[in-house]
Each structure stands twice: as C-alpha cells, then as structure tokens.
C-alpha cells in the first residue's frame, strides 16, 4: 500500500488550472565531489559487486570524466573475522571472486573501503536475513484510459507484473523487489531505406539482423515494510508496468523478479531514494532529504558519504509471458532496420530461451 497523496495535488492542479512544468536554471555553488558507495551481498551465489563513484555536477553528466573511484581497497568481512578482498573488474566496479564468499542467512557483514588517498570508510554491520519465497508471480493487463492530442479517448494497455507472498509473522520484515526482463524482437532489416545523393529515399536492404533479445533491469527502490500486514498474505504487489506494445510483446517476454529481505536501514535508504526519484514538485511532498547512508569515514564522521551496503536474503521467481496470454495481440513490431540498433539489443540467444 503506497500513499499516492503526493501525486494527488499535482493532478488536481494540473487538471483544474493547467499547471505547468518547465526547466529551470539554477545556479549552484561549486561543491566537492562526495563518495558514493553501493553494494550488496546476498545468499545467492556470487560474485557480489560494490560500485564506487562520486557525485556529479548538474550539466556534467556526459561531459565530465568518469566519476568512478579507482584503485581503492575494498573488503567484505563477516562476523567470524573472515574477510575477502574485492578486485576492480572495471573502473570503480569491484567484485568478489565468485567462489571466495557466499552470503549466509544470519551472517553479519561489514564493508571496508580504503581509498588511494588514504581515507578509510567502513559500513555499519548488516545482518543477512532469509527472504520468504515468492508465492505467485503473474501478469495482468491493465487498461488505462487517456486522451490523445486530438482529444479522442483512447485506452492504453499496460502489463502489470504482480507478486503474491506470505509474510512471516514473527519479525519485522522489509522487502525490496528488483526485476530483470528479456524479450525477443523481430525487425525487418530487408526493408531498410537509405538515401541517394539527392537525399531521396531508396531501398537499401540490410542482411542483418532481424532477431534480437533485449534485456532490461528495473532497479527502482520498490520497497515495502510489513508494518501494516505482518503475518498476512501480501496480494498483488505491483512490481512494474510495461506498456503493452509490439516491441515488448510481439514475441514471448521473460520476467524474473527477485524478492530481497533487507534491513530497516536499507529500507529507509531505498524509500527515501524512491521519493526523491519520483518527485513531482508538489508542496504536499515530503521535504527533500538525503537517503541516509550506512557508510562513514571513520576519521571524520562529519563527512557526507552516500550510498548503502546491504546484506539481503533473496528469493527468485521467473516466468514467460506469451504473446496471446491476455487474449489480445500487441501487434507486429515495425522496425525496418538492423535490430542491433535498438538500445541494449543483442543477437545472442539467452541460455534460458
């Protein structure tokens, strides 16, 4: 159950009084770059990844040099004192050796980061709790009525990905869901149109490729505490909504949902993050706040560090959505070009396909 009140006023305002959102130029002072740490250990097999980055200035997203923090020493230690060092696989991306450590339920894990300049950071200790299994993972067609530019009423369909689960009643539980989906697209490279010297379109069929797979990740916070349903079933928790469009549903569509049992600190972190990401500018929204990190500089506790290191139990479930599952067909995807030009597409058939 999420409170939608923060959207409500925006909608009231929008609908009644034609409110308006436009870009705004804000001059901000130069600010030092803050360290951002993000990593997680689960009871699934490794490798486990920790990312070290810094904050960006506005307007510098593409122009700035990579904000990754390189050549740091990153270790994960458990309650027994056993510790593994993470190797830097890519700039700023540190990974465990997949066989070196495996998260255990009940294990207590701490992350240490030593930067090249000698600054030392340590996370609070996180206990790994077991995740209840996903009871049911399913999809449902959700029609949303909208009006197009010509003021005609149109129904746009979404596919809601839903989860049912049963909450254990003996403790406080905090959930986070993440999702991976993969779908196959069929395109028409043979229908590609090029242009001649005079700029007129001419047929320029391509040989490749018409079959691709696209994988996407949905990693918005999506967290929930069991405060209001402790010990009960959780029914039809919406994980995401995918537009019911040919690109996504002309062929079958694979969905994998991971249900994570996170700590209260991680829950608060992701919840705040969610609020920040979903901001609509309404004054009815909670005042902006930074998601509280569990990492600090041991020598200087005043230093602002961002990000979170979590330990979480995980349970997974996956299924395929077939093109005719909802009784209607999304249609054929029209893309007269090489399918590899679509963002994230690959011609490599996934192993589970």
């Amino acid at each position: 159950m999420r409170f939608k009140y923060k959207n409500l006023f925006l909608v009231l305002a929008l609908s009644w009084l034609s409110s308006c959102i436009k870009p705004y130029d804000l001059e901000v002072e130069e600010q030092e770059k803050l360290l951002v740490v993000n990593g997680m250990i689960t009871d699934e097999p490794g490798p486990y990844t920790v990312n070290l980055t810094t904050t960006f200035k506005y307007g510098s997203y593409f122009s700035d040099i990579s904000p990754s923090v390189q050549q740091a020493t990153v270790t994960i230690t458990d309650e027994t004192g056993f510790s593994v060092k993470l190797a830097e696989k890519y700039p700023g991306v540190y990974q465990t050796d997949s066989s070196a450590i495996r998260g255990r339920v009940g294990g207590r894990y701490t992350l240490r980061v030593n930067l090249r300049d000698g600054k030392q950071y340590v996370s609070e200790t996180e206990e790994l709790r077991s995740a209840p299994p996903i009871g049911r993972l399913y999809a449902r067609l959700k029609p949303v009525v909208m009006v197009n530019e010509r003021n005609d009423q149109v129904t746009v369909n979404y596919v809601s990905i839903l989860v049912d689960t049963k909450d254990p009643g003996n403790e406080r539980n905090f959930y986070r869901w993440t999702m991976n989906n993969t779908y196959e697209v069929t395109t028409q490279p043979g229908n590609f149109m090029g242009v001649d010297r005079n700029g007129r379109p001419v047929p320029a069929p391509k040989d490749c490729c018409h079959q691709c797979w696209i994988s996407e990740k949905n990693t918005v916070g999506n967290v929930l505490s069991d405060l209001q349903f402790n010990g009960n079933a959780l029914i039809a928790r919406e994980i995401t909504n995918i537009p019911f469009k040919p690109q996504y549903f002309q062929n079958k569509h694979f969905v994998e949902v991971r249900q994570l049992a996170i700590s209260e600190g991680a829950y608060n972190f992701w919840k705040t993050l969610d609020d920040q990401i979903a901001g609509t500018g309404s004054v009815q929204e909670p005042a902006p706040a930074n998601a509280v990190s569990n990492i600090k500089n041991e020598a200087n506790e005043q230093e602002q560090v961002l990000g979170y290191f979590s330990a979480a139990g995980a349970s997974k479930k996956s299924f395929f959505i077939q093109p005719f599952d909802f009784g209607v067909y999304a249609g054929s995807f029209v893309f007269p070009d090489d399918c590899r030009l679509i963002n994230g597409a690959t011609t490599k058939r996934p192993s589970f396909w």
Partner: protein
Amino acid sequence: MKKLYLLLLASVLSFSPEQLQAQTAPPKTFSVAYQNAPLKQALTELEQKFGVKIFYREEWLTGKTVTLNLKNATLPEALQATLAGSEYVFMQYDAANVVVMPALLEKTSEGNIAAVRIRKDDIAPKVEIIGGPRIAPRNQKLTLKGVVKDGKHNEPAIGATVQVEKLGIGTVTDINGNYELKLVPGKHEVSISAVGLETQKRTIQLNGSGTLNAELLDIAFNLSEVQIEAERKNNNVAGVQMGVNRLSIKEIKKMPALLGEVDVVKTLQLLPGVTSVGEAAVGYNVRGGNADQNLILLDQVPVFNPMHLFGFFSVFNPDVVQDLTFYRGAIPAQFGGRLSSILDVKQKEGSYEKVQGSGGIGIVSGRLAVEGPVLHKKGSFLLAGRSSYSDWIFKKLPKASLRDDQASFYDGTIKFSALLSEQTKVMASGYRSHDSFGFSADTIYSSSTTNGSVSINHIFSDKFILNATAFTGDYAMNIDFNAPGNEAQYASGIKQQGFKTDLLVRQGRQKINVGGAATYYNFEQGSLVPLSEASNINADVLPLERALESALYLNDEIELNSVFSFTVGLRYSFYQNYGNGAVLNYQSGKPKNELTVVDTAYYGKNEVVQRYRGAEPRFALKYALNEKSSVKAGYSRTRQYMHVISNTLTISPVDIWKTSNSHIKPQIGDQVSLGYFRNLKQNTIETSAEIYYKQIKDQLDFKEGADLFLNHQLETALIAANGEAYGLELMVNKKGGLLTGWASYAYSRSWLKTNSSFAEEQINEGRKYPTSYDKPHNLNLVLNYQLTRRLSASANFTYSTGRPFTASTAFYVIEGNVVPYYADRNQYRIPDYHRLDLSLTFLTNLRKNKKWEGNWNLAVYNVYARNNAYSVFYRHKYGSQPRVFQLAVIGTAIPSISYNFKF
C-alpha cells in the same frame, strides 16, 4: 456621542444646512404623560409632534413600554426621558431625523449588534422656502432659476428637465446647466431629472423669485445608506491596538478571486506580514510564524483546517461571513493558544425583520443562504449552504484518466438567535464542512469539520456585559483504501469541547475584560483499520491522547487622557496531558531514538502525564502626537500547546495535530512591536508603519527523511528549533471615495535554529537557516474603483520574493537511478512571485424597492499568465541529462464568471 461617527455616503450630502434652517418651524416643546404605553407609540407621537422622523429597528422596541410624565419638554429632553431605562440611546442626525440605537453599539468597539441602516428614501422630505419669508401676491408670476449639476463630476447637467408635474410646467437646462421657470407663489413639487441620473423631487414653498440649485447623482449609486459603524473612524490612530486589520465581507467580495470563489483566507494574504508557501497552500504564515500558529475562530469555535480541497478555496461561505478581525501584533489577552495570529471570523445573524436570502452561482460551486425572523421577530434564523459541482468538472476534463478522479466539497451553516429579554440574547450555531477527493477509485481522501456552539450575551447594565460560549468541534481526516485485498481505512483527527466566558466592565476611562476558557481535546493520532475480513491489512492504532487547556485572563484598556492610552493584559494558561497507556522514557543526555529507550511508564486514563503552565503578559501603549497621528508600542507573549506534525511544506492529508507531552514542549512566542500611525483627509486615508521582532521557542521541525505516518515513537522523528523573525510593514489604506483599497509593503525575515547538541537532532549542523516561508519582500496592491453606479472594477497585484528551498547541488547514480543530492536545508530560493488579478462587478438591477438584486462578476486571475514557480524539483529522463524543473500550479490566466444575488 463623540464616539459615534456616521458614514455618510454620497446622496445624503444633498441635505445642506441651509435647507434645514429653511424648514417650517416645528413646536419647540411638548407635554405628555404615559402609563405603560408601548415605547413604539411614544416614539410615533414624538415624531408627529416635533415633525421629525425617528429611525429604529422594530425588534428593539417590541414588547417594551414606557411610563413618564413630560412637561414642556424639548425634543432631546423628551427622547431622553422616553428612552431612559432602556438600553437604547438616540442621536439627532439632523433637524428632521433622529436615530435610535442600542447603547452597546455606541460604546463597544466589538460591534456585535448589526449596524443600523437608514435608507435615504425614508428620510422625511423637507420643504425648502424660497424667496423670503413673506409670500408674494397670488397671481404674481415668480421666477425660479438655478443650476443643475451632475453631482459626481460636478459638471453642469445639460438638457436636464425641471418640471412641476401638477401644473404641467417644465423646462430644460442650457449648456451651462442653467434653467429658469415661471411659477405662481405657493407650495410646489419640483422634479429634476436627466438621462442617466437619478430624478430628484424637491418640495418648495415659493414665496418670491429665487434660486433652486440641484445636484443629481448617478442612478446606480447604490450607496444611499447611512451606516452607523461601531468602530471609531479614526481607530487607526486613536485605538491602542496595533497589528490589527478589520475587513468587511463587502470589501472582500469586491476583490478578484480565483475561479470567482470569494476567499477570506486569500484576502488575508494580501495584508502586510502575511505570506504563504505558494498557490493552493493550506494556511498562511504570519510574521515569520509557522502555519499551525494561527488560531482561526469561526463564531468563536476554533477551525483546524481553513481550506477546502487542501488549499484551493477557503471554508468560509461569503454569504454568511459578516466581517473578520485579524490580529498579528500584540494579541489581546482574551485570545490565546496560538503563537502568531488570531483570525476572528464572525458570521452574521439572521434578519429579525423579514425573510430574505442571497446566493450565487460560480464555476466551482453554488451557494444559497436564507434568513428571517422567528418567535414573532424576537428571534432569527439563518441557513446557508455551499456545494461544489467539481465532480462534474472532472467529467469534462480532456484527460480521461482524470475522469475517474473526484473532488468535491460542501459547507453549511445553521444559526438561531433569540432575544430572551431586552438584555439577554441567546445564539446557537452549527457548522459543517466536508471534502472528498480521490486520485483513483482505490484511494479516497476525505476531511470534515463539524462545529457547534451555544452562546449567551447578557447586558447587566451598560457597564457590565457578559458573554459566554460553550462549543464542541470535531475535525476528522480519513483515507479509504479500496484496493481488493487491502481494504482499510486510515483515520486521524482532533475533537474539542470547550467553554469560555468574558465579562466586559466599563469603569470610567477603563474597559476591562475578564474571563476564562477551558478546552478538552482528544487527539486521534492515526489509526489504520482493515475494512473487511479478507483484508490483509493489520490494524495499527496509535493511542488517543487527551489534554485539557485552560486559561484565565484580565485585559484592561485604559484611556488616561487624549494623549496616552494603554492596555495591560495577563493571560495565564494551564495545560495538562492525560495518560492513556504507555509513555516511553529515553536516556537523558542522549538523542531520542529507538536505542536510547530506557523504560516504559504506564499512565491511567485520567492520570496527568505532564503539566505545563505559564503567564502570557500582553501590553500595548498609544501616544497621540496630535489628532491625526500617534505612536504605538506593544509586547506579547503567547504559548501554544498543540502542534501540527508535518514534513511537507504545507498541511497535507496525513498530517496530524499533536499534543504537548513529556517529550514535546509547548512553543513560546515573544513579540515586541513599534508603530507610527497617521490619518489623512478626514480619516479617509490611513497610513501606518510598524516594526516587530519576534522570538519563538521550541517550534517543531523534523529529522531528515523522517517517516511521520503512524509512527509510534513520533518524538524520535521531531526536533525542537528556536525561531527568530523581524520585519517592517508599511501600509496605506484609502477607505472613502470612488477609489478605495490599500497598498502595503513588508520586509520580513524568519529563521530557525536547532538547539540540540547531537548531530542527528540538528539541521544544517546547528546553524540558523531560513524558514520555508521566509520571503523578505512583499508588496500588495488592492484597488477598487467605482466606474459608474452599476460598474466597479478591482485589481490586486502581489509581489513577493521566492521562498527558500533545499536545492540539489549535485546528483549521483545508484543502480542506474539518478538521485539528487541535497545540500543544506533552505539555502536557495525559487523565483520571485508576482501576479495581477482583475475583476469587474456589474449590478443588474438598480430599481428601488427591488425584490431581486443581482450582480455579475467577471474575474481574471493571473492576468499576464505568469508561470509563478510553486516549487523546484529534479527529474531525470532516460537518455537525457538530469535537469532542474519548476512547477507552476497556475500557469495561465484563469478567467471566471459568477452570478450573485440577493432577494
């Protein structure tokens, strides 16, 4: 009598002193004896004998008798004797007209009795004697000449008709407005008329040739009322109070309003020192105070939410509101319980004379009010209601996804009053307002206010007047979750039952108010309850909190002499928070959080958990520099025992009212202010300059990212902060003439500073930071111009510095999500706010004795369609740079039309 001023409007000016002298002489004295004769009969006889007209309201005299013996009494003596022993006094308005009015009205400045109104038409015609005292021979042709002018513009009325209808004689005026007429001697009725101007009928006794000049007035001049105002006209300068504004609903109705909905609260925001965090914000901020520091009284009962639909319209029905008084400076000791301001909204009483009504139809809502006499004109009733038809509007919306949305509101007032005796009046009133809105069918928000009160007003003598009120109130917030499997209802609210009494004592040059008040509160801090067996929601109920707030006060207004007057007041308030279960104790010397809980204490239902008490001294001083200007100073301390818990900028549906308890201390405010006041042009222009400095102790703020919803340890999420505010307010207010309105400028600052030594209980590391409503420059212009008798135009202009906000100075990426990083709180400002609104009011029917009076109001809100930023926020769209955006709630000009009527 010196305190009484007449607002003589336009038409009455036509009675010049010459005319009065020229009147046929009435008898100088009169002898009569009455034995238990009806008072009305006595007055009627006086009218006849002295040839005057006496004005009074019928219900004042009903059932009253008089016993007296007059011998050769003059008119004043006769009136005095006749009215002696009643609570009425008289005033000789002019030689031919006498006004009888309640003694109370003359003396109090509260004016709780409706003003006396006299229509010009009722004033007795006088005979003007022209051509000397001796009448000319019967058949002599005499010349009557004169100038006819357009009274408003003081220009000659060309082509005006001057005629004596009975004789069939007439003429028209020339280019200079001159006319000449041949007439026989004797008594004539001359009628003077011109196109577009009101016809004047004059009775003359033509004894010889002479002059009769006339000034004709515009037909639509609907100002032919003599209104006796309870307030001194020079109150701005002569009164002790400062930081006070009184507004009549008449003034407010003229102003342009959003969607044509006359709005008391929005009008308030045009006064100096009053700001809000933005368009469609609930509540307002006064002199650097938080929105929960304003006490809003509707017929003496506190109202917790003054807005419909969380910010768009105010809950006060313009047909019912009589006037409002707004205190933002030194608050008199009669009021307390909130730090920053008092808004005292008075609803009118029903008419004791006849059944009448008013109403209106606008874009958003329709309203109707009916009032009239009951109990043989010894009582009155008033019934009024207003309801939106905005669900209908949603159905017309271009976005079909919004057509499932709903938003509606209504409010209703019922009021009875009865005169139990000449000295005792009883009133009972009820008020209910309700809002309901939903983003989808799954989640419906509703809120309601239900208030009731009974009050009694007893006049022991003109020196002792007692007022007592008992009231009850219920403010409830609900959220209904209707999603299958998750059916539940969230509820929170506050209930109050209270009693207050006030005794007004006049003693020489002193006016003393002494009294007390007690209110018992039930704070429902929030409960979530499943609505069906199948619901997966667990019940979660925060315990009820109870408290008793009481106060005793004494306020003494002393007019030492014409130069010095001052008010000393003391309010002493007591607060008791009663137990209802567990109270957590935290380790002392540590920040309050889950880890520092030491133990739990249990308190029974009526056991006192925490007591607070304290004195609230109030002081005000006036020093008159001369008749037209004065200097005033004031000091007040106020205590506030209840707080709105909110982490949003403005009050939102999930906010709750919370009592002071062992963890949350009361807020204490101290304000000193100094002002210079000057009136110009016979008190028609009031000017003032005020400065103030204010300190607030223990105002609540919240920890970053704190979750306040159904939080069982709310105290761990809250932080006490000390506030500081100061400012300068300048105002020019023009009250008379064709152009009325005000201009005000305020410079004001307000700050907060957390006082904890623990990092987690600090904001901006314990440095002072501007409040979210710190808007240094504020300029307001409110103008109304009477274009013609039918048509008036109004304009509002407002400008203010953009409010502070917490800016994101950088962003970071976590798992592909772009997240803004926020630096210190409130260090940046959104763009400045300015807006112009215009309106035109057009009266449809100008005939006298009309049964139906209507007016059309055309308004345009935000005329030059400025995109005033409401907030600034951050958004990232896939494939583009994260950007800063501004949201304008109203991004265009909003025209509206409404029709209002009276019958």
